[in-house]
């Protein structure tokens, strides 16, 4: 009865839309207020989201601040370095 369904489609790779992430790491120099400001200014996050991410950086040592294609993440990391934040990118796993 279900044979037709069992002849399933050939296995296809799941297309992952946003496979790369930008991480911002804690450091003892950048001010909490400045990090919040940068997240609002560059990513256009509202203050609540920017502060939440900043607190994650501060307390957990790092936070994922954006995701997207590798090119997009390289752009975000470059921008963060421009602001003086310690940022890296990697493939999300």
């Amino acid at each position, binding site marked *: 009865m279900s044979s037709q369904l069992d002849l399933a489609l050939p296995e296809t790779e799941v297309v992952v839309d946003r496979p790369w992430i930008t991480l911002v790491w804690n450091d003892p120099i950048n001010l909490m207020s400045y990090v919040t400001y940068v997240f609002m200014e560059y990513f256009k996050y509202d203050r609540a989201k920017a502060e939440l991410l900043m607190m994650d950086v501060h307390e957990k040592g790092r936070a994922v601040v954006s995701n997207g294609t590798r090119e997009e993440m390289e752009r975000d990391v*470059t921008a963060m*370095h*421009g*602001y*003086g934040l*310690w*940022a*890296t*990118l*990697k493939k999300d796993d």
Partner: protein
Amino acid sequence: MGGFSKSLTGRVILRVDEVEKGLLVSLADQVCEFVSPEPHGHSDPLAAIVGIDMDAEFPDDPAMARLFPDAYPDDPEAALDFRRFTQRSLQEAKLAHARTVLQSLSKSGEKVTLGAGDVPSWLGFLNDARLAIGTRIEITEDNHEELADLPEDDPRHGMFHVYDWLTYLQESLVQLLLP
């Protein structure tokens, strides 16, 4: 201590005395020198025009490494490639910030009025200077008191007090900008 404030017309103003102003000029000069890209010798001049620096390497200097960190900590090859394509432009952007600061400070008087477009440069410069000094004095989240209590003949004594003042200035500027 002066710090940043807003005028009635919404302009950002920095109040500094002559000594503080001289200190900021000297710091901006040092940041200019510090972030300036090496003049290109045998590198491809066309590549330099579009911001590519095939000679870029991971910096030996810890303060430089802090200002220009690795983008791919677990992939040295990708990190170096990234550096070659981005570091020169970043250096030029930081240089432009410090030059804008010098421009603002070139006008006479103890009241420095920032042009609307100058604010990001001031913020960037203050942060770059703090990153460079903070890395040099090896600041951590726990050693502020220890650094503050250093004897006057310790070279880090003066640097810590400059760092502390820059922190105050940057905080006062960020507070004006946060909605």
